[in-house]
């Protein structure tokens, strides 16, 4: 059952759910924090429209800083601005930021421990026709491995907007990723969203399996949960694990204890992603059988976004199968 206290969107289970760009959430949120604090600046690498940084540029042209197609400089200029006293949001595609400038982020932002907020846009295979070069599937791994770095993966438009506020309030560096396509609206303005606190969206009294997801695929997890209940009488929990680092350890441990089996869902390589972080917590506290929904050591390819998600094993059917598999391993 959907948890009432989450104030989720009413169209979640509609045949055609209401959709919106998560990157619009980033763009709108950035304008909001820009109004709150004039030290907030936006730095962009020739992708103001795609990343929706142009909303900020329109309202605060003097606080928009263009570096051109130069992602290494995006990171180093961002570091300098933060060191001086600004709160820079640096944006590009996740394939380049942090894909290309990982070392600059590591040395001049994370080790340097300065408050640069890093947006990776167009994450995952759902980028679609652009193909593997632009489908970033390793960014969570890169960023969560860096000390001092915090990592958030918002699930929809509203969470992307709230993520900007949360990132702005953190003292140090924060990385967050958004998708290219319009994706289902899961949460509303009234939904709780607290840094480091996972939200249980679908609750069962005695769950057989806990589905722990992040990003827009949380919607597919919810649809899978409903179908599992209806067709198979399998009870699940669905947890929106938006903060990858620091992860809500207690929520993960409780889920492992209550359900005794876990499926993680992310649009990322299964190696070193959110699911791996969940496995690290479970292995040390409550060893639990786990199945991993994500990309298995492959690069993506060109194609329609949703067909790619299915092909790479991240659709509703794949989640349902994973839940049944892990249930049998209990």
């Amino acid at each position, binding site marked *: 059952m959907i948890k009432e206290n989450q104030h989720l969107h009413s169209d979640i289970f509609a045949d055609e759910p209401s959709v919106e760009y998560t990157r619009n959430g980033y763009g709108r949120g950035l304008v909001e924090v820009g109004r709150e604090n004039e030290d907030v600046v936006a730095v962009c690498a020739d992708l103001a429209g795609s990343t929706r940084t142009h909303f900020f540029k329109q309202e605060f042209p003097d606080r928009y800083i263009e570096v051109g197609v130069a992602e290494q*400089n995006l990171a180093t200029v961002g570091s300098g601005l933060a060191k001086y006293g600004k709160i820079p949001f640096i944006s590009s595609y996740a394939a380049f930021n942090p894909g290309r400038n990982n070392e600059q982020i590591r040395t001049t932002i994370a080790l340097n421990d300065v408050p640069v907020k890093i947006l990776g846009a167009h994450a995952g295979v759902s980028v679609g026709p652009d193909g593997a070069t632009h489908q970033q599937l390793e960014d969570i791994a890169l960023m969560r491995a860096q000390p001092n770095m915090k990592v958030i993966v918002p699930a929809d438009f509203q969470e992307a907007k709230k993520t900007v506020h949360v990132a702005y309030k953190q003292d140090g560096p924060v990385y967050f990723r958004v998708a290219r396509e319009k994706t289902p609206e899961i949460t509303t303005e009234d939904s709780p969203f607290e840094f480091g606190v996972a939200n249980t969206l679908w609750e069962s009294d005695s769950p057989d399996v806990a589905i722990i997801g992040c990003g827009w695929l949380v919607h597919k997890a919810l649809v899978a949960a409903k179908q599992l209940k209806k067709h198979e009488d399998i009870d699940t929990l669905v947890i929106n694990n938006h903060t990858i680092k620091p992860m809500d350890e207690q929520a993960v441990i409780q889920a492992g204890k209550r359900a005794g089996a876990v499926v993680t869902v992310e649009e990322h390589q299964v190696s070193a992603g959110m699911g791996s972080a969940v496995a690290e917590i479970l292995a040390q506290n409550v060893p639990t059988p786990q199945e991993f929904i994500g990309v298995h050591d492959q690069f993506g390819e060109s194609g329609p976004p949703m067909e790619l998600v299915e092909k790479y094993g991240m659709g509703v059917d794949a989640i349902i199968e994973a839940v049944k598999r892990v249930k049998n391993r209990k």
Partner: protein
Amino acid sequence: MNITDDKVQELEEIAMDVRETIVRMLAEAGSGHLAGPLGMADMMTAFYFHVLEHKPDEPMWDDRDRLILSNGHTVPVRYAVMAHAGYFPIEDIENNLRKLGSPYQGHPERTEIPALETTSGPLGSGLGQAAGIAYGAQMDDRDFHVYCQMSDGEQDAGNIWESAMFAGANQLGNLTGVIDRNNIQINGHTEDVMPLEELVDKYEAFGWHVIEVDGHNIEHFVDACEQAKAIYEDPTLILAHTIPGKGIDEIEFDPGWHGKPPEKGAQEKAFLQELRTLEGKIEASHLD
């Protein structure tokens, strides 16, 4: 603001003391880079004892000039000069460089010593950071100046040219870059490893004002810094020609000394002896 002959002589003497500190600290550490720091000793002394607006007893004074050390491997010269300027005890830095638990990391870390301004070592990333600081300062009409000390070898890195383009395009007149043009890098001479010339033309094409100086002539280096500050419309590059290992014959010009410390004991003593008898030579280079 011209520098007097007496002041130049005083700085030359400090630079010799700094060189001695560098030899001692590296011999004690047993690892680290010797040639670059010795070659930069005169410029770094000029920075901390004349050029920079700063307060050793108030390191994070908000109006201080910012000095970014992009070629982080040369940080021994910065530690040594800062110690002589009063930031930390000289014995402390001579005994603790690169030691476990010491703030004097092998490459500079801001979180250990905030007065270092930034964390650096991987080459090519300092100029962008300096440009970011300069851009922010320009947004707020701040008066302080931003300096970025670089090596010539790191001009191989693409990040440098992204930053050079950014600084030129945004006319960051409050930014001055300094290249320690000593012509060596790890694999040999710069023009053999990856030719850099014509460096002056390259920076000018990126919108910078360029001044060439002898990096061991403190008077000329200080003049160049004053000129750079006076130029408001563009960033300035000071291309400072130096001798790697300056002050010790065996080390001068030899790429083999890029990443080596002096051996503790006889070699350290011989180097220190040589430095102590060199004052006349350094003074002569100033007078010509």
